[in-house]
């Protein structure tokens, strides 16, 4: 059985705001293809103020789907529609003191029902823009569709790269076989039949890069470093994190990890990935370290 928080169990055993809402003027019906769960969210919105006066739900689904629906109605009551649109699936999960990774899609379904109900109230067409696939990485709740998209978009070739871009595989490592299968499939599509060799099972340590023909000036070097950091920022920002250069001291490059990146379990993997890119760009062995490791000035 899943390890549900007490709050999830409490909302499942005593769901708030369940059943039909006669005076509803915004209704969202959505389902999760991932497990067949489905949810009808009903909102009663005051037209002048656009405040949600009441919210009810009906759910065909598991314990966490019912708890997520219950939590969602409690969260949005009293909000304006614009405020409600800011509610993320993470907000729903946090309200319930977290959900198991396999069950995060229940909170995603809640957020989508909310968007659909508001679109319905406003007379708009709601269409869903994200697709869910089989859950691959259980440590970070990353599914197959996400991994495949990122592998295709960034021309990735190794499990390490997939971990750097998506976090998938960065925890217990049990899903590496699944990631390798996705890599093999995309790489064979990319290369055409018969041209592809499987990703290495145990990648060799990269050789020391050849020294550049001309030694970089410190200004050129910093410009290159900034260039690398700019290239990784969009990816970190997608996870609500960010990075900026703190200092360069010889072969040590210190960076500030910001937002969700700071204190993240994946900090070491993130820095390792940035370091690899730095070594390639600069043509010399450098170390990328968090700014907290900077020597204290005398």
């Amino acid at each position, binding site marked *: 059985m899943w390890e549900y928080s007490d709050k999830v169990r409490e909302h499942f055993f005593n769901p708030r705001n369940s059943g039909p809402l006669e005076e509803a003027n915004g209704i969202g019906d959505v389902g999760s293809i991932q497990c067949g769960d*489905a949810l009808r969210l009903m909102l009663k919105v005051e037209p002048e103020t656009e405040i949600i006066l009441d919210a009810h739900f009906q759910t065909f689904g598991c314990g966490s789907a019912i708890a997520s629906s219950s939590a969602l109605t409690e969260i949005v009551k009293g909000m304006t529609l614009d405020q409600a649109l800011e509610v993320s699936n993470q907000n729903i999960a946090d309200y319930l003191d977290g959900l198991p990774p396999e069950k995060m899609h229940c909170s995603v379904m809640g957020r989508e029902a909310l968007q659909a109900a508001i679109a319905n109230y406003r007379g708009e067409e709601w269409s869903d823009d994200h697709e869910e696939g089989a859950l691959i990485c259980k440590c970070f709740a990353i599914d197959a569709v996400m991994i495949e998209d990122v592998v295709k978009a960034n021309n990735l070739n190794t499990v390490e790269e997939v971990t750097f871009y998506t976090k998938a595989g960065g925890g217990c490592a049990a899903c590496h076989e699944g990631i390798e299968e996705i890599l093999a499939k995309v790489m064979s599509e990319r290369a055409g039949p018969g041209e592809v060799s499987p990703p290495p099972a145990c990648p060799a340590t990269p050789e020391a890069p050849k020294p550049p023909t001309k030694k970089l000036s410190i200004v050129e070097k910093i410009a290159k470093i900034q260039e690398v950091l700019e290239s990784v920022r969009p990816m970190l920002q997608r996870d609500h994190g960010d990075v900026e250069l703190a200092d360069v001291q010889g072969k040590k490059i210190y960076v500030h990890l910001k937002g969700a990146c700071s204190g993240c379990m994946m900090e070491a993997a993130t820095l390792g990935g940035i370091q690899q890119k730095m070594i390639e760009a600069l043509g010399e062995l450098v170390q990328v370290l968090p700014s907290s490791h900077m020597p204290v000035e005398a």
Partner: protein
Amino acid sequence: MEPIYLDNNATTRCDPAVVEAMLPFFTEHFGNASSIHAFGSEVGKALKKARGQIQALLGAEHDSEIIFTSCGTESDSTAILSALKAQPDRNTVITTNVEHPAILTLCEWLEKEGYIVHKLKVDKKGRIDMDEYKSLLHDRVAVVSVMWANNETGTIFPIEEMAALASAKGIMFHTDAVQAVGKIQIDLKNTKIDMLSLSGHKLHAPKGIGVLYLRRGCRFRPLLRGGHQERGRRAGTENSASIVGLGVACELAMQHMAEENTTVKRLRDKLEQGLLSQITHCFPTGDVSNRLPNTSNIAFEYIEGEGILMLLNKVGIAGSSGSACTSGSLEPSHVMRAMGIPYTAAHGTIRFSLSRYNTEAEIDRVIAEVPPIVAQLRKLSPYWSDKGPVANPEAAFAPTYA
């Protein structure tokens, strides 16, 4: 209140007599059966006795046809991989699409390795089409592997007839009988079955012990090579305590075989009738006229199984479900899908599996507890109105799936 355990197809409690027989093998009889000294020979004798007890339950001709393994899954993998290794000119496996993952996941991997796997389809009651089966038996088939009884619905397949058909074409036949052993009569010496898997913990022996029955003369290639244990067919020091426990469990199973098919069956039928008569829009799945005596799998329409299990658990009743959410996979049970059970019913399937330890009083309590739980969840369901499903449920609630 004492909890009620109705999940015996998942695992069973060890019989107290089994535990008692095992305990000395952790203490005074700790020896290695291969050793020459007295510490070892005592254990060797105990293993021989256990082998005989298992031989008797299975009706095997020789006790050397019993190979101890670590679990049912190991027995399944050993059987299929052996058949393929031993017959390199044969590249095809025939199985069904309702097998346990121990077979299906292995077969998916074999397909990636280039083997051909034919999965027999089943009808709405979970029955195999024997004409389809016969048409697939050709000289490229290395092995047929079909479960004796289905773990989810209890549906029994005509294994003896299928084995005879395979044998007539010179094809090896394996059956995963982990659910059937101890519940239905098996007499292997009078069948054409070449290999059979059993698992100790399904019949009141401990977890971590299994058996592969291998008919004498059936060509074999071991999965684990190393020491000479099990006549070199399964290396690794014997799990002596568990083997002794399994021997006792098999002897007890023989003694209780009639009880399974009378007392346990009657309680199962009482439970099923009690629920079907009180709850609308639910139905038993599988071939109800030809199934294990202890299993009832009921689909409660328009609600989802995990919720039912959580509410049952709250009142101390343990069952299992074929819903997607309880498995952590994308889809409801592959067995329910194979039988064409609609999603709104497949998600709400609950399996009650009894054992000889269940009592009449327990069954009465379950019959009383389940209906309000189903009603409570249906009140939350968008497919349900006050007294029954909304008119034309699939049209009335047609969510955007994403």
